[in-house]
Every structure is written in C-alpha cells, then in structure tokens.
C-alpha cells in the first residue's frame, strides 16, 4: 500500500518539476509530498547527522495541544445554545450543533489562509512553511461562534497578507497573525465581536449572553461562579472558555518544550501581580475582584498558552521573554479594569507587546554588547601593564 502510494508520487513528480506540465505548481506538489512522506534528503555540508525534529513535528505538536480546547469549544457551542433556547438536548445533539457551527469556520479559515500561503510560496519559489497549520486553527478558536463566514475569509486574508506575507512570510512577521485577524474584525465589525448577543450561537433576542468580562465592563457583578468558569460552561470565543482544556494543552506544550515556559509563567505572574495591585487600591468593585478571576475569564489563559508563546512574535532572548510575558500580563489586566470600552484586554496587550518584543531584545542584547566592550578594555589594561 505504502509502496504503491510512493510509486504513484514518484510517477507524477516529473510533471511538477521544472519543464513539466504543471511546473507552476511545484511548491504545492512539494508541500503535499513532504506532508505525505518524510523527504529522503541527506546532509550535504556541515553536520552529517541531524536532530530528528523539524517544523512539521513542531507545528503538529501545537495543533494537538489545541485539540482539548477545540473539542470542548465545539461541545460548549451546542451547550450554550440549548441552554439559551431552554431546550433539552442529548450529548450528540449538542456536539452535532457545535460541529455545524464550528466546522465551516475552521474550513474557511484553512482554505483561505492556505490558498494565500501556497500562492505566495509559488510566486517566491519557496517551499510552503508549516506555520499556517497552527494559525489556521487558532483563528476560529478566538472568534465568536456565530461569525459570518465571509468575515472569517476577509479577516484571514487580511491577517495572512498584511500580518504575515507583507513582512516576508513565516518567521518574519511582527505580530501574531491569528490575533491580527481577530483585531481586524474587532475594529472593522465591532457589532459581531462584542456585546452580549454574539457569544452564543443562534441566540434568542431576549436572552443575555454576556461573557463574564462583558458583565464586568458594564458594571454588573452577577458573575458565574468560579468553578463554572474553570471548566468553561460560559459564553465566549470557541476555544477560550475552559481553563481545564487549555491547561491540558499547556501541559503538552511544556512537556515537549515547544512553548516557552518562561513566557507562560511570566504572563500568569504579571496578570496576578496587576490583579493584586488593583486589589490593594480597591477603588471600585472591578478592582476588588479576586486576582485569580482574571485567569478564569475571557481569553487570558488561551492567550498566555497559545498566543503569547508564538516564538516568532515573542521576544527571542531568554531574559527578554520574562520581561515580555510579565508586561503582557500586566497590560492585559490593566486594560480590562481601567478601560471598559475594550472588555477583553488580552488580545490588545499581546499585540502591543508583539510590537515591543524587538525593542526588549535590543536592550537585552545591548547589555551583552556593553559587557563585551568593557571586558576588552579591562583586558587591554592588564595586558599593557
């Protein structure tokens, strides 16, 4: 079976190489081939042996880490809907409804994004990078379930074109593409991205489906209890509601070492720190909220685990990662509490720090450079003596 498949690939390959009938699809063919079979390339120069890891393995690990949150999200879409319309439903009805809402969004995100990625790879005669495997999954997970599909397509196109390809593609982008897509919709179509009518699919008009952050931003206090927010039975974006499901993903990312523990830890630490500071000030009820509530509401954990840790847009030095994460946590909570116009501070906080990450790295590296120059002067002096 495998041999037959290999034989088929080998037979069709000449059509897609230079001079072949479909040479203009070379990058696309290679992407699918290397997806199917590990390339049999051997080392040419430098190290004769190489580590078994590659970008495919890395990206697939992240996609697997997203699965608990995604599956829970699908169930939660159905659960929230049937709760809002006050109907009884079986587990499979709930899942079925969730799938009906989630799958089209995922499919649209992948098709739009991959089409652009493949086209750019083709134009540049590059190989297709695997980065979009993760981005394509992240975009649906940070959007409300009822989002119109054409908006998903427009936002994805914007994120991939302006957020990524304009900077040179995977590895070169300044801001996280998935969050760029979300920010685009947030500012371009605020009516579908905020308020208390968008977070539950097919919601009856009379029902208020506000997220905990929405309730707080409007000065309300009747939050769901902490336990509900931990397991995630609350309205919200598809992937962000369950702290437990996100933690499962975080465990995989930390165990495999794919995501930086420094960033995850420092984001959580920074958020807690700001929360405690507000507790100490205690000027209004939002400030008096127990600091750990910030972890349970909105996209804080999802952002800390999957967004802030994006290695391309985060700080790259180890010291820089601590500062970067800490500031994300601090700003996220600060935005939430002080600026009620933007109920969710996490997205803007991460995007802001994405822009500052190069500056943080610059300062960290400047210290290293200064140390080296100082050493040279000291050694010169001792040598001269």
């Amino acid at each position, binding site marked *: 079976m495998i041999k037959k498949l290999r034989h088929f690939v080998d037979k069709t390959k000449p059509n897609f190489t230079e001079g072949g009938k479909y040479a203009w699809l070379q990058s696309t063919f290679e992407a699918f081939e290397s997806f199917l079979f590990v*390339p049999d390339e051997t080392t040419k120069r430098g190290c004769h042996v190489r580590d078994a890891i590659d970008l495919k393995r890395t990206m697939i690990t992240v996609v697997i880490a997203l699965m608990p949150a995604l599956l829970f999200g699908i169930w939660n879409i159905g659960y929230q809907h049937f709760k809002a319309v006050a109907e009884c439903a079986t587990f499979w009805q709930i899942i079925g409804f969730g799938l009906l809402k989630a799958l089209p969004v995922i499919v649209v995100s992948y098709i739009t994004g991959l089409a652009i990625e493949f086209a750019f790879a083709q134009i540049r005669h590059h190989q297709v990078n695997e980065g979009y495997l993760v981005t394509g999954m992240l975009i649906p997970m940070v959007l409300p379930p009822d989002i119109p599909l054409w908006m998903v397509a427009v936002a994805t196109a914007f994120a991939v074109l302006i957020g990524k390809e304009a900077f040179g593609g995977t590895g070169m982008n300044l801001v996280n593409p998935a969050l760029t897509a979300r920010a685009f919709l947030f500012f371009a179509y605020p009516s579908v991205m905020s308020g208390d009518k968008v977070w539950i699919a097919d919601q009856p008009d009379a029902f208020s489906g506000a997220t905990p952050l929405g309730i707080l931003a409007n000065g309300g206090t009747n939050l769901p209890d902490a336990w509900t927010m931990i397991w995630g039975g609350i309205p919200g974006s598809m992937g962000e509601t369950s702290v437990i499901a996100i933690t499962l993903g975080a465990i995989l990312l930390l165990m495999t*070492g794919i995501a930086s523990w420094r960033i995850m830890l420092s984001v959580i630490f920074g958020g807690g720190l700001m929360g405690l500071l507000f507790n100490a000030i205690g000027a209004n009820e939002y400030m008096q909220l127990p600091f750990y509530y910030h972890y349970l509401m909105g996209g804080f954990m999802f952002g800390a685990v999957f967004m802030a840790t994006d290695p391309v847009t985060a700080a790259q*030095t180890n010291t820089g990662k601590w500062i970067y994460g800490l500031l994300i946590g601090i700003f996220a909570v600060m935005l939430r509490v002080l600026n009620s116009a933007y109920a969710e501070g996490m997205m803007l906080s991460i995007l802001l720090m994405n822009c500052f990450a190069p500056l943080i790295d610059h300062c960290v590296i400047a210290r290293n450079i200064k140390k080296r120059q100082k050493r040279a002067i000291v050694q010169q002096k001792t040598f001269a003596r």
Partner: protein
Amino acid sequence: MSQVIKIKQGLDIHLKGKAEQVVSCVIPDYFALHPTDFIGLMPRLRVQEGDQVKVGTPLFCDKRDERIRFTAPVSGTVSEIRRGAKRQLQAIVIQSDKQNAALPFEVGELTKEGITQSLLEIGLWPMIRQRPYSTVARPDDTPQAFFISAFDSSPLAPDMDFLAEHFPDSLQKGLEVLNILSDGKLHLCVHAEKTQSEVLLKAKNVVIHQFSGPHPSGNVGTQINKICPINKGDIVWYCGLPEIINIGHFFLTGQLDFGRIYAVAGSGLLHPHYIQTKLGASVSALVKNNLKDDHQRIVSGNVLTGKAVTENGFIGYYHNVLSVIPEGDQRHELIGWIWPGFKKFSMSRTFPSGFIPNALQPDFELDTNYHGEERAYVMTGEFEKVFPFDIYPLQLIKACLVGDIDLMENLGIYEVDPEDFALCEFVDTSKTDIQAIIFEALEKLRKEAEG
C-alpha cells in the same frame, strides 16, 4: 589544581560504533596532504609528480610566508598532484616506499626562537593554529595564551587518554617545548571525570584546568572562552594532543615522525577500532574489509564538523577520527512527523529520546538523513541550550547572514569558530547550515583584516 569549570549547555550525542581500544598497524600505499585543509593558505608547490621525497621534504609552502612549510609525512614518490576547479591545488599524493626514511634534522636550542626555527624547518609548525579564524599560527605573533584540549567530547571521538598513554614521554616533552614557545602561558584542559590518565593529570610545565559537562566542553573554543575570552585583536594559539606527540617525539629523539593513531569508528563498520599509521593515510586502507556495505558516508573528522570523503580520499590534517555512518537516503517514511519515533534521536522532547537524561541515553544509530527541509527561523531558545558561550547565537547568526561587520564584532564573532556552532546546526528545527554561515562571515573578516 584549579576549580572545575562546569559546562551546562551542550549535548552528548551517543552514537553506536565507538572504537574498541585495540590498535592495529596499517601502512597504506598512499598518503596525501591537502592544502585545502589550511584555512586561507595560498600554497606554493615545491615538488613535481615523480619526485622522490623523504619524511620532512617540503611539499608546498605558504606563499605569504615561505618559512611555513608543509612536509612529506612518509618517504616515497610523489605519485599524483590533484587539482580542482581553476587549477586549485587539492592534494599531493605520495606513494609510500614503506621505509619511512627521514631527512636528518638537528634539534635546535630549547629557546623560543630555536623551537620556532626547528618547527618551521621540519614542517611541524602548521600543527599550531590560532583563534580567531583557525588559520595556521604566524611565527612572528605573540599569543595571549596557548591552549590544549586534552579530551574530545564530540561523537565517536578518540579517547585522548588512550593516545596519551601510548606516548607518555613524547607528550610530556611536547608540553615542555610548547611551554617555552608560549612564554609559560600554556593551558591544558582536562575533563573532571573522564580524563583518568596520569600522564595528563600530572603533566608538568602547564596550567591545568578542569572542565565538566557535555559536548562542546572538549572544544578548544569553549575552553578559551571560559578562561581567556578573545577580544578584537587578540590571538590565542592552540594545538591538538596527537600533534603535540609528534612535536615532542622530534625534540625527544631527533627523529621526525608523523605517526598517528586514528580512531576508525561508526555504525557503518564491522569492527570499529584504532589504527596506527602516519598522517594523511588513505581512506581505502583505513576501512579495508571493514565496511558493512557500500552505502555508507565516510567522514574525515567527527560527524558534526568533519568532511565527507570517498574511498580514494585521505584523512585530513587535523582530524583524529574517521567516522563511518549509514547514508539516510533510502527511506520514505509515511507521514513521519506524527509517529512517536522510538529509534530517533532528538534533543527536543517531541521524541521519546528527549526525555532520557543526556548521560543515561543509549547509543543511537544515526544516518545522514536531513529529517526535514530548510525553513525560516521560527523556534527560539533551542540554540541557547547547546551553546555555552556568553553570546546570543541566533542574533549572531542573523548578523552574519546580513553581513553587518560591526554587529558581528559587537556580538562576539571573534570568540567563535564554525565548530562551536556544530551543535546549534544539529538541533536546528529550521535545518539551516549554520557552520557555513559562521565560516563565511569569519572568512569575510579575515580577508578584510589581511587586506
């Protein structure tokens, strides 16, 4: 003895086929010297095909400093002068007469000038190299320090203890000579646990430093960086143990001899072991009747930094090991990125092997497969795990790629050598050729410095 310098960042790659501590004697028919082994050398040929040579007869010299000679390691006839593109001199092949007759040389005075003079004359001088750039040392320079690494931490490396025990007297004499040459600034770096040989631990006329931890603790670049980091304009000399044994042997006996014990190791061999022969021996003689099959990669040097050679090639001037590993081009693994991969080796914990502590890992049989394709730099923090310098590796690599000389200098380019980046290249998720990037950057700086 000074305190132990702990190397925390690094990776030991345990490969199957370590050389068994058995020495067999092989006298191949052919030997060769490659002018291309010496970075930046412009060779001037001194012999022609058909010339009779003895041990110590100059084969070629450095055009810019004709005192630096490269002499024949064996006696016999120059059988072939291999040239490459643009008539680049690639190898001078000698057919050995198996007499090992040497030109008569007199051992000079044991002063700095006398030793320099002798080493230049007999052709042992090129065994001393300098950092930065890893070129042959210039006789008129005064180095800040002279370093010797007394252990090799790279995969399949020869056991330096084993070599030292074979020639204790030559080694000690060599150290004495180099100590004079370096004005007493000779540093010998040993491994805190792995170096057991009394010859090394109780060596005289040197400052001994102890290192511990995984590869690249045995790289002389790491050791220099920890003890006496190189600033712009500094020069540090270094030399390997087998080379010192050659030097010591001459000053001890007055006889010039390029004898070497090479480790011939790797999972592609039937009996990995040590072979006693002369410098520059032919590969075919070293692996004769020992290859598992034809489909092997033969590497002169270790598998991280060495050069691929064919069976009609020769072992390189500075190499102490001939590594033979299987080629990895004959498998097409279906959706290989998803399987657990129990037999695969990786530093990352996306494979089971990543969870085993480095010291407890079993030996792996690695082949030359790339395990992926080249990509843009995405992951961060992985180089830092295997790079024990106080340098930001990714930033330095990027500075080299854009060719920003000021930035390279600021980030510490003079402290590094391509081999120091070998492990970064090994673990790189994006599969880039980092050693080549660093090499080209250093070459650019060297050419600029030499004008």
